[in-house]
């Protein structure tokens, strides 16, 4: 199996130190496009799509592997191994934060440090923990996704038929960066929103940074603080940015936060 093709891995940039960007649930590597130009000069940039997202190989989807976030974490490790990366700075958005946590627990030696953009250790409210969602909200999410698939499948159909006589349509499809496979995305949603990684936090051995947005009800502030308290060597930055996608809505601030972390926190220890 070709790992690089499977995960549509893209490597570029002029530096030696590797920055690996991992997209969150719902999108693909394109979501980092406002961020990576700021780092291209000095770092090696590694981008990829999780299997089932973006331009990954849908045929590589393995139900038993991706039945838990562990399977997605294995992909990260496999990509690092394949590219012979070491001392990686891992930057994960949303669910990728916990995927990064799991990967770093398995192979701490691969990672230099981790940046978690809008992380959540558990989305569902528990007895003594407020994740922000009830079971019912998440069931509803799966329903809405399915309804959308009906519409999308109609307009994804031409791609299958290779309709080259309608270039405008193909162009539109090519730009539809959140393309996804319904079945896989449903199960990714399940795995993402029903997983509980609270117990894993204290096992992380690499230094980390939490980027907390304002008004982010998917990863609310109290969840960010919860994670910060339990991650041994972590820092937390409260961003001006609002919402759940600061790297897209507020790229400058996001870049600054990442740069500060890498240069101030990590340079002295020789990245």
């Amino acid at each position, binding site marked *: 199996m070709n790992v690089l093709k499977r995960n549509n891995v893209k490597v570029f940039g002029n530096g030696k130190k590797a920055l690996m960007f991992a997209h969150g649930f719902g*999108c693909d590597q394109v*979501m980092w496009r406002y961020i990576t130009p700021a780092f291209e000069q000095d770092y090696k940039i590694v981008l990829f799509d999780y299997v089932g997202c973006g331009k990954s190989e849908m045929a590589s989807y393995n139900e038993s592997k991706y039945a838990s976030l562990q399977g997605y974490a294995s992909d990260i490790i496999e990509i690092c191994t394949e590219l012979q990366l070491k001392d990686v700075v891992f930057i994960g958005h949303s669910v990728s934060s916990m995927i990064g946590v799991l990967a770093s627990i398995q192979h701490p*030696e691969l990672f230099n440090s981790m940046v978690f953009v809008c992380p959540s250790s558990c989305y569902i409210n528990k007895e003594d923990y407020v994740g922000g969602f009830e079971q019912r909200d998440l069931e509803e*999410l799966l329903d809405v996704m399915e*309804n959308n698939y009906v519409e999308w499948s109609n307009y994804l159909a031409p791609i299958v038929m290779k309709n080259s006589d309608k270039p405008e349509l193909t162009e539109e499809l090519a730009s539809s960066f959140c393309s996804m496979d319904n079945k896989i995305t449903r199960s990714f949603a399940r795995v993402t929103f029903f997983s509980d990684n609270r117990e894993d936090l204290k096992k992380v051995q690499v230094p980390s940074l939490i980027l907390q947005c304002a008004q982010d009800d998917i990863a609310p502030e109290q969840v960010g603080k919860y994670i910060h308290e339990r991650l041994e060597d972590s820092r937390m930055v409260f961003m001006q940015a609002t919402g759940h996608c600061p790297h897209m809505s507020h790229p400058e601030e996001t870049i600054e936060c990442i740069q500060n972390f890498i240069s101030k926190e990590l340079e002295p220890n020789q990245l």
Partner: protein
Amino acid sequence: MNENAPCFLFSFLVDHHINYVNDLMMEALGYEDHEILNTLRFEDLLSGGSRILYKTHFFPMLLIQNDIKEIFISLRSKKGEEIPVLINMSFIKKNGVEYVTGAGLKMSKRNDFEKRILDARRDAEKALQENELLIKTKAQLEISRTLLEDQLQNQSRINKEQIEFNKILAHDLQEPLHKISIFASRLEDFSDLKSQEEKSRHYLKRVLQISENSHALVKRLQVYHALDYKKLHYLKASFETILEDAIIKTGNLPLEIIYGEMEMKEVYGDIPKLTILFSELLKNSYQYRSSEKSSSIHISTSKVTENYHQALKGAYRYIEYIRITFRDNTLGFQSYSGDDIFRPLQNSDNSYGKGLGLAFCKKIVELHKGRISIKPEKNGGSKFSILLPIEVPSN
């Protein structure tokens, strides 16, 4: 004009605050103007599931593509009713102002039909999928069985050879060495011959030493080799007991053991073998100790989840392991390249039989279906990571 349009029209700013909603939509939502405008965010009008999808999919898409079409979401009215709508949205940047406009069609009836179609399709898909899975599994089973048969045959051949080989190690090789040392020591006894004695005594001493060392090495090799075909007897024991015994096994080497966080206090395994594992690790740490500080060992354990399948490609079964972290404050090794350090006689300092210690460790760990790795510590010393399955492997 817009007010009377037979569809929902709305717009909101980049901070998501709504600044326009037409009459039809306002009526359906059941709010008054002042309750919404410049007060609520667009996502506040969405039902729980739709809000997640909007924030994880649709909003990022809007930012990248500038518009999204024919998306389905559920609005939630003031009273809490769900209003299914089909929506188009555009991200507009005009005269320095950035905002999002949208138009939606209420589709309650269509949604009901669609729901039924979806249910039917889901049932059909499920049946199809189960059938496909069954056929696939059957084919895979057949392949696995052939593979297993080959491996079993191979294994039994190797086992026989191993037992043979071990006999050679135990007798055919050890015996002659043993005899050489006996004869050499006899020779030494009556070499009071005065003249050439200095020289011959020296050589004799060498012969004696080499044969004793070789004897010891062969003996240790034999024990190492015998590990392979002796069955493991699983029992439970605490790490503290195992380490106490391991220290005794090293001949009470002066090592201080410090326990860190012990998430797992006990381990299930072949306890005598695990004791050997730790005594070898301890001996190794002592052998490479720094002359400047007293030797201390730091041990901690935690529970981790990893894929059980290492050899089988494409197979995944995530199970729980105990991870034992064993840190020492030695001088460390010169090279940590890959697995070399665990190979027999790799890091030998020419003292016979000593270079087998870490090979013992690796073999014992692997017999327990576990893994061992080593990493240099930043401020000197080595860190061994040992993974052992928490449950006994079923085979």
